[in-house]
C-alpha cells in the first residue's frame, strides 16, 4: 500500500516539471518528490527485511486483457528495493542542487522519476508482463536521459548504441519468459516456479537470461554500450545507471536462475564465473587506460559486475552440486557486493559530477589540486575510492573477503573443471582487485592531488549544500556497511538461504563482531575490533609523536630533489601514471604502441609522444557484426523494389511454407 503510493508519487513527480517547466522551483520540487518517495520505498524495504515478513501480494486490474497485473514483495524484492532506493534518494537529493547545473536540465527532470519508477516496478513485478513493462520503462527512460545532451555528436552515438543493446536485451528476455511460461502461457511467476520444462527449454532459458540480463548489467563482451552511455548522461543519472540499473539487471538474473528456473546445471555456474572473471580483469584494464573520469568509473562498473558474476556463478555451481550451505555463502557475498557497489559507485559518480560542476571538466589531464579547493567532495571521493579498492575497514573489503572465502571453498566441488578452474578464477579476481586499487590511486591522485593542470581546476569552488550532503551521506554509508559486517550478513542470509535451499553453516563460537565464512576456524574478520584496536594505537601514536617530536610543521616550496619546476605540466599525468601498467598488461591486449618523436639537436621542433591503442572487443566483435548487419540489410533492401508479380509470388510461397509447417506439426 505504502509502496504503491510512493510509486504513484513518482508519476506525479514526472508531471510537475511538464506542467511548470519554466520555473526552476518546479524542477527542484520534482527532485524533492523523488527523494520523498525513494525514502518511503527504502523504508518499506527495510521494515520488510527487518521483520522477516512473508511475501506480500497485490493484484491490480490493469495490464493484458486476460490477465491482471501481479506485484509481490518478498525478501529478495525488498533487498533490491533497498539497493535501488537508497542511492536513488541520494541522487535525488544531489539533483536538487545539481539538476539546474546540468546542461539541458529541462530534458532531465521529467524522465528521472520515470526511470526510478521503471526500476522499482521491475523488482516488484510478479508476472512476466509487469516485469518486462518495467524493464522497458527503465531502458527507455534512461535512454532519454542519456540523450538529454543531444547536441553532442558523441552522445547521440552512445544513445544509439544503447538503444540497440537495450532492445537486444529485451529481445532475449521476452522468449526466456515465454519458454518458462510454457504452452499454457501462464505468465505469473508463481506458475513458472511450479512449472517443469525439458532440458532444451531449460538450456535456452538460462542462455537467454544471461544474454538479456548480462547485456544490461554490462558483462563482457556485451558491455560495449555501458562505458559510452553511462558517462553521457548527467552525473546523478550516470550514478543511478551504473550503481543501480546494473543491479536491477542482476536482479533479473538472480530471479530467473535461482528462483524461477531453480535447477540450473553447474556448468552454467562455471561459465558465469569465467565470464565474470573476464569482465573483472578486462573492465579494470580498460578503466586504467581511460583519461575521462566518468568513463573510467563506467569501466570500473564492468569490473564490479564481473566480480558479482563470479560469486553468482559459484553459488550456482555449489547449489547444483549439493553444497547448499556454500551456495548461500556465495550468494551472501554477491548480495553484499551489490549493496556495496550501489553505495560507492553512486558516491563516485556523484563526486565526478561535483568535479564537473566545479570545473566543467571530466578529463583527468586537465584536473589536479582539487583537494584544496573542494574540502568536502575530496574526502568523500577518497572514501569511495578506498572502498572500491577493497581496503578495510570500508565496505568493499567485506564483500571481497566473503567472495574470496567462498572461492577458497570452490575446490571442494567434485568436478575437475572446478578444482582447476576455481584457483584460476581466484587469481584473476585477485589481479582485478589489485588493478582496481591502482586505478583509483590514479583517478584520485590525478584529479584531486598535486597542482592544478588547467585554469578551470585552479579556480574550482566547492559545490552547493544538497550535493555535499548526498556525498557525505553516501560516504558514511560506505563506512557503516564496512564496520558492522555481521549485522549486514545476518540480514542477507535470510534472503540468500531460501534461494540456495539451505542455511549457512553456523559460525560456531563466534559472537557479534566476528565475521566468519563457516566455523570460526576457517577464517574470521572483525572490522569492529580492528577499528577499535586501530583507534587505541592511533591515540598512543599521537601521544608518542607529540612527546618525542615537539617542533611545529613548516610550510615551504616543494623540494623535488633540489630542482623544483614551476610548471604543473611536469607532474605525472593520467597517461604517464598508467604507462608501466600499460606496458605490462596493455601491449598484448590493447596493442598499445608508444612512439617518441625526438628531433635531432639544434632542431627547434618540440619532441612528440604519441600513443596508439585499439579496442580488441570493439574491433573484433562489434564492427564485424555491424558490417554483417549492413550487408544483410543491403541484400534484403532489394525486396523493397520488386514488381507486384513477385510480391504476390512471395506471399504465395509464405502461405505454402506455413501450411506445410502446420501440416507437419499435426
Amino acid at each position, binding site marked *: 500500500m505504502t509502496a504503491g503510493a510512493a510509486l504513484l508519487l513518482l508519476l506525479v513527480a514526472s508531471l510537475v516539471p511538464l506542467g511548470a517547466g519554466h520555473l526552476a522551483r518546479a524542477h527542484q520540487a520534482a527532485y524533492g518528490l523523488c527523494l520523498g518517495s525513494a525514502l518511503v520505498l527504502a523504508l518499506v524495504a527495510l521494515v520488510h527485511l527487518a521483520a522477516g515478513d512473508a511475501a506480500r501480494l497485490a493484484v491490480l486490474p490493469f495490464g493484458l486483457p486476460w490477465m491482471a497485473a501481479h506485484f509481490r514483495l518478498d525478501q529478495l524484492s525488498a533487498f533490491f528495493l533497498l539497493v535501488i532506493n537508497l542511492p536513488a534518494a541520494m541522487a535525488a537529493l544531489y539533483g536538487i542542487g545539481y539538476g539546474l547545473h546540468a546542461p539541458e536540465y529541462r530534458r532531465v527532470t521529467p524522465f528521472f522519476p520515470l526511470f526510478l519508477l521503471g526500476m522499482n516496478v521491475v523488482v516488484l513485478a510478479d508476472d512476466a508482463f509487469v516485469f518486462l513493462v518495467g524493464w522497458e520503462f527503465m531502458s527507455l527512460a534512461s535512454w532519454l536521459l542519456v540523450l538529454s545532451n543531444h547536441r553532442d555528436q558523441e552522445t547521440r552515438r552512445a544513445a544509439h548504441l544503447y538503444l540497440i543493446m537495450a532492445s537486444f536485451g529485451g529481445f532475449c528476455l521476452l522468449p526466456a519468459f515465454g519458454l518458462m511460461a510454457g504452452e499454457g502461457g501462464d505468465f505469473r511467476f508463481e506458475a513458472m516456479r511450479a512449472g517443469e520444462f525439458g532440458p532444451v527449454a531449460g538450456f535456452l532459458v538460462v542462455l537467454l537470461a544471461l544474454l538479456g540480463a548480462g547485456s544490461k548489467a554490462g558483462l563482457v563482451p556485451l558491455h560495449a554500450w555501458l562505458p559510452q552511455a553511462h558517462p553521457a548522461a548527467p552525473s546523478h543519472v550516470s550514478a543511478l545507471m551504473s550503481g543501480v540499473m546494473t543491479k536491477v539487471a542482476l536482479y533479473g538474473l538472480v530471479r530467473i536462475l535461482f528462483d524461477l528456473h531453480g535447477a540450473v546445471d553447474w556448468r552454467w555456474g562455471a561459465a558465469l564465473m569465467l565470464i565474470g572473471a573476464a569482465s573483472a580483469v578486462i573492465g579494470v584494464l580498460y578503466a586504467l587506460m581511460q583519461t575521462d573520469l566518468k568513463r573510467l568509473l563506467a569501466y570500473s562498473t564492468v569490473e564490479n559486475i564481473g566480480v558479482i558474476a563470479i560469486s553468482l556463478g559459484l553459488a550456482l555451481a555449489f547449489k547444483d552440486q549439493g553444497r547448499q550451505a556454500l551456495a548461500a555463502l556465495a550468494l551472501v557475498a554477491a548480495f553484499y557486493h551489490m549493496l556495496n557497489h550501489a553505495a560507492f559507485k553512486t558516491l563516485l559518480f556523484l563526486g565526478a559530477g561535483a568535479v564537473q560542476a566545479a570545473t566543467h571538466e571530466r578529463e583527468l589531464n586537465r584536473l589536479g589540486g582539487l583537494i584544496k579547493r573542494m574540502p568536502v567532495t575530496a574526502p568523500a571521493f577518497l572514501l569511495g575510492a578506498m572502498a572500491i579498492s577493497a581496503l578495510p575497514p570500508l565496505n568493499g573489503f567485506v564483500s571481497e573477503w566473503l567472495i574470496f572465502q567462498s572461492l577458497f571453498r570452490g575446490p571442494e566441488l567434485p568436478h575437475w573443471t572446478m578444482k582447476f578452474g576455481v584457483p584460476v578464477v581466484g587469481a584473476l579476481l585477485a589481479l582485478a582487485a*589489485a588493478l582496481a586499487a591502482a586505478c583509483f*590511486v590514479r583517478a584520485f591522485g590525478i584529479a584531486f592531488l598535486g597542482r592544478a593542470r588547467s585554469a578551470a581546476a585552479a579556480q574550482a569552488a566547492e559545490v552547493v549544500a544538497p550535493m555535499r550532503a548526498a556525498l557525505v551521506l553516501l560516504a558514511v554509508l560506505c563506512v557503516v556497511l564496512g564496520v558492522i559486517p555481521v549485522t549486514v550478513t545476518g540480514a542477507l542470509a535470510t534472503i540468500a538461504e531460501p534461494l540456495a535451499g539451505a542455511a549457512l553453516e553456523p559460525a560456531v563460537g563466534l559472537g557479534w563482531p566476528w565475521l566468519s565464512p563457516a566455523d570460526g576456524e576457517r577464517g574470521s574478520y572483525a572490522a569492529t575490533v580492528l577499528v577499535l584496536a586501530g583507534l587505541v*594505537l592511533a591515540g598512543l601514536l599521537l601521544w608518542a609523536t607529540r612527546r618525542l617530536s615537539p617542533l611545529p610543521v613548516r610550510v615551504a616550496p616543494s*623540494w623535488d630533489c633540489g630542482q623544483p619546476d614551476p610548471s604543473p605540466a611536469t607532474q605525472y599525468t593520467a597517461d604517464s601514471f598508467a604507462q608501466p601498467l600499460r606496458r605490462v598488461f596493455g601491449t598484448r591486449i590493447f596493442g598499445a604502441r608508444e612512439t617518441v618523436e625526438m628531433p635531432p639537436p639544434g632542431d627547434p621542433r618540440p619532441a612528440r609522444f604519441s600513443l596508439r591503442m585499439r579496442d580488441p572487443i570493439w574491433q573484433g566483435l562489434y564492427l564485424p557484426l555491424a558490417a554483417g548487419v549492413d550487408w544483410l540489410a543491403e541484400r534484403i533492401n532489394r525486396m523493397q523494389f520488386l514488381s507486384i508479380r513477385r510480391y504476390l509470388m512471395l506471399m504465395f510461397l509464405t502461405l505454402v511454407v506455413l501450411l506445410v509447417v502446420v501440416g507437419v506439426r499435426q
Partner: protein
Amino acid sequence: MSAALWQILQIALALALAPGLTGLVRWLKAVLQGRGGPSLLQPYRDLYRLLRKEPVVSEDSSWLFRLAPYGCFLAVLLAAAIVPTFTTHLTLVHAADLIALVALLGIARFLTALAGMDAGTAFGGLGASREMMIASLAEPAMLMVTFSLSLLAGSTLPANIVGFVLGGGIGLEVSMGLALAALTMVAIAETGRIPIDNPATHLELTMVHEAMVLEYSGRHLALMEATGMLRLWLFASLILCLFLPWGIALPGGGFLAILLGLVTYVVKLAGIAVALAVFETSIAKMRLFRVADFLGGALLLALLGTIFLYVSEAV
C-alpha cells in the same frame, strides 16, 4: 587476560625489533662487502634524529600528505599485530586473517602512493606509478599463496595454520615449497629489496619507494621509514610463522613455552637476516620492466601450488 598481555608484548616486540632487523641486515651486508658497517643501533638513532627535526611540508601538498604517515604506520602495525611470532595466544589473532593482512598492507600502499602524488612533483608520481604496477602483481601472488595454505590447512588464519603445521598436519608438500618460493618473491618486492628496488639508492631511474617519500622530512619521514622497517619485519615474521613455525607456543603452553617461543623467534629472525643479506649481496638489481616477469613468475608459482595439491592427491 593473558592473551591481551601477549598481544601487547607482540606489538612491543614488533616496534622494538623492526629497526634492529633493518640494522642487522645493513651491517651484515656491509661485512659481506668488506666494509666495517654501521652500528646495529644506527636505525634507532636515525629515527630519533628525524623525530627531533623540524618537519617541512610542501606548500602544494594537502592534509592528506600529513595524514598519510600516521595511516601507513598504523596499518602496518595492525598487520604486524596479527602475525604470531612467539605465541598464537593473541587477542587480535581472530580479528584479521591473511586476506585482511594483504588488505591492511594495501592501505599503507594506497596512502603512500597518494602522498607521493600530493606535492605535485615528477618524482612522486613516478614512484607511485611504479609502486602500483609492482603491487598489481605482488598482491594477487600473495592471495594465491593464501589460497594454497587455506586448502592445505583448512584456514586462512595464520594462527590456525601454525597450529596445523605444528600438529604434523603437513608433511613435505610440493605445494608448500611453491608457496614459500612465491611468498619470498612477493616479500622481496613488497619490502623494496634488491633486485626489485634498492633501499639505499637515490638515483631516479632505480628508485620506487624512495621516490614517493622524497618530500617527507622530520617526524613524517621518521614514520615512513619506521613503516618500511616494520614491513620488512612483518614479512620476515610471516614467512617464519607460516613455513617455519617450530617453537611458537600454542594456547595453554605455559610461561616456559612462551619463553622458548621468544628465544627461537629471535634466532630464526637472525637467520632470515643472514639469508637476506647474502641474497642481496649476490644479486644485481633488475630493470624495472623485468619486475613484471619476476612477479608474474611468483603469481604462477603460487597458482601452480594450488593446482599441485590435486595432482599430488590424485597420484
